[in-house]
């Protein structure tokens, strides 16, 4: 019998970094910026939080304040990913560099940046294993409601997560509301669809692109922080984050640019991502690798279905990947 009560919480925990990453990327793409730097930005978000937490733990010793233990890594993460977002915008919006090249470069940069500073911290801490261990800080991040464990299956399924998990869902739903129902969302969609039109309507294209990309980067950065502080219980090691950043970008396509769909879709992706651990496959590792493909296979299927339906409403923003220059013709 498949153990859903233990599988689903693991899937959700896997899904939350993807949800944050894809919500951030969706906002970014709605402004017409195809930010392939998201994997790097999540990496930078993670290492920034780790740096903050590391120095706070060192400074505070055994006497940690719960609020600061959460606030300092979060601020560091937001700042680190904001800087990445600003850099991306400066290159693609202000200097009008190619978005794909810039994004890929930023992913390479972000991963290298993370591994470099991660390695430095490992040396500073003098740890015997090649990892930074921040279990104390992680304790504050992953704290769930005290009575959750007493509520049986319900508690495990719905109340067993750290606050960042709930924040991720709230951010996704809020992003969805903003995009659909507010003037800011309408303007943002117009910028991503047709910047010339938005410009003529008096909307500042540059400002919207910068704002959406930077906010999106910060949200994605939180995904990296969640991964370290909650999922791995505060243990940083090089390259542990894996290909989750790319999965987050795949998720954007899977959800056809709708963050509210992303809530459930990310849990589905999370489930598919770890399914191989729950399916008995014996010693045959090749089969496990096949299971790991599932999220991508599903994305390809969604792409096929969406393009076969040819619905104008489930297409990517029309000017996605293009930079805008008012006097160009």
């Amino acid at each position, binding site marked *: 019998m498949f153990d859903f009560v233990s599988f689903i919480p693991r899937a959700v925990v896997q899904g939350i970094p993807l949800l944050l990453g894809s919500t951030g990327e969706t906002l970014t793409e709605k402004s017409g910026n195809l930010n392939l730097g998201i994997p790097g930005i999540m990496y930078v978000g993670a290492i920034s939080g780790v740096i903050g937490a590391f120095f706070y733990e060192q400074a505070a010793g055994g006497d940690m304040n719960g609020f600061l233990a959460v606030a300092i890594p979060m601020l560091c993460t937001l700042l680190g990913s904001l800087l990445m977002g600003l850099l991306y915008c400066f290159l693609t919006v202000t200097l009008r560099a190619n978005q794909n090249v810039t994004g890929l470069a930023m992913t390479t940069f972000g991963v290298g940046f993370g591994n470099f500073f991660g390695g430095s911290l490992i040396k500073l801490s003098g740890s015997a294993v090649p990892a930074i261990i921040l279990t104390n800080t992680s304790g504050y991040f992953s704290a769930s409601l005290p009575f959750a464990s007493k509520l049986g299956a319900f508690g495990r399924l719905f109340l067993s997560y750290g606050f960042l998990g709930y924040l991720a869902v709230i951010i996704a739903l809020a992003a969805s509301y903003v995009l659909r129902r*507010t003037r800011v969302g309408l*303007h943002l969609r117009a910028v991503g*669809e*047709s910047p010339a*039109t*938005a410009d*003529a309507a008096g909307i500042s294209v540059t400002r919207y692109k910068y704002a959406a990309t930077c906010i999106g980067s910060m949200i994605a950065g939180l995904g990296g922080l969640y991964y370290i502080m909650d999922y791995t219980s505060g243990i940083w090691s090089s390259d542990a984050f894996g290909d989750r950043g790319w999965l987050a970008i795949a998720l954007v396509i899977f959800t056809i640019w709708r963050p509210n769909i992303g809530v459930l879709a990310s849990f589905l992706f999370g489930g598919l991502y770890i399914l191989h651990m729950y399916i008995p496959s014996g010693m045959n590792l090749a089969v496990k690798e096949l299971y790991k493909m599932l999220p991508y296979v599903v994305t390809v299927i969604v792409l096929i279905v969406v393009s076969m339906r040819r619905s104008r409403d489930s297409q990517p923003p*029309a000017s996605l990947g293009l930079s805008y220059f008012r*006097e160009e013709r």
Partner: protein
Amino acid sequence: MDNRIPAVENKTPAVEMRNITKAFGGKVVANDKVWLDIYRGEILALLGENGSGKTTLMNMLSGIYFPDEGEISIDGREVVIRSPKDAFSLGIGMIHQHFKLVDVLTAAENIVLGLEGKLDLKAASERIRAICDAYGFQVDPNQKIYDMSVSQKQTVEIVKVLYRGADILILDEPTAVLTPQETEKLFSVLRTMRDDGKAIVIITHKMHEVIALSDRVAILRRGQFIGDMRTADTNAREMTNMMVGRPVTLNIERPDPVDPKPRIEVKDLTVRSADGILKLDGVSFVANAGEILGVAGISGCGQKELLESIAGLQSVESGSICYIEDDGSRDELIGKDPLAIANMGVSLSFVPEDRLGMGLVGSMDLAGNMMLRSYRRGHSVFADRRAPRELAEHVVEELEVVTPGVLTPVSRLSGGNVQKVLVGREIASSPTVLLTAYAVRGLDINASYTIYDLINRQKKNGVAVVYVGEDLDVLLELCDRILVLCGGKVSGIVPGRGANKHDVGLMMTQLGGTAHE
């Protein structure tokens, strides 16, 4: 300023533009010390050739560009217009030639785009309906733009500026994409708005529209203000002469067909688009050598598919397209690719609708674009670069293309010059069949006549010309016969001589129309 008429008595102009100068890139002076007055309760036609600076001038009024020099006053008060937003707040609204609408949004969402405050689409829809009732528009606020026809989109654009409270309206070539009936409807709306006390500026090339609609004309030539006058006091010839700066003949030449004999015979041609929509339905006609066959129709009625089928670019569901040689032997064109069609001695020259998209490579220079037709020639592995370059120089000289040189990327040229390069290249291959689509789209009167002239010369050489056009007046004057398409079907084929514009317009909108064949 001797050409200026005295200001309409005792009226302050709604807009006064004084000494407006705008240069691009330091070199090209688009507007040079232009003076212009716009009055309420009046329709002003702004006339000028391509590149005469009409659109630039109006873009400065609507906040897209900022003038280098000069003053703008609204109702006698000097203002600075830095952005479209500033223009809106002064009551200036511009309807651009290329609609500024977001396809995936609804009409209402497009109309409120850029405004501030809480987003309340219900209240917005109410106001939109009220505006529509006042002027007799039909707009469904909840309809998506991609579901709309061109004329519906234009209506949305007009409602958009009215919604913002604009009382100075600028329309940049509003009739370029409309049928005669739609144009008439637009004009009556504009007249209502004028009587309502709004100031209206319409930018156009079309002389008969100026005469039919406007109260006053202002003429620009090469960025300079030439003069303005009451429409009633002038005529098409005088206006054209002022526009061009020298006397021009306004009649399009239509020599009698030279020895017409069938060249292309199309029978029961049926074409479906990739998503299964019927684009051409049982189309049959004959195009004769030494004759111009016009194709009229609302845009998107199958003109593109028709030309592409003949050129071998479109897969055909059923029917036949025969190429008939001088000696009467017939070759089936369907199933051959464009290269094979050329290799069997059939030369089709094709000016695609989207001239930069399909006809030319924008980032390549003139010589390179000429080479797109000739790179297969020669026997060595190296392409011959000299011949295309000479051809480019020849085309530049012959058609008076304004360009810094043949090594300039085509995308830097203005629309009219791009068109000349394309048509020039196609004609240079001395075809036996010339297919053209919208060859004069966006061209001014002078450049258009150059193109008509070129086409006529081809006709005299015994080329079978298929001319897809959008200006019915031109079709009626230029073509020997006119094929009218309506929704992918042949609505009728009428002789060009003596055809009636109204009848052809009707045939475009309903099969067979009421016209007598």
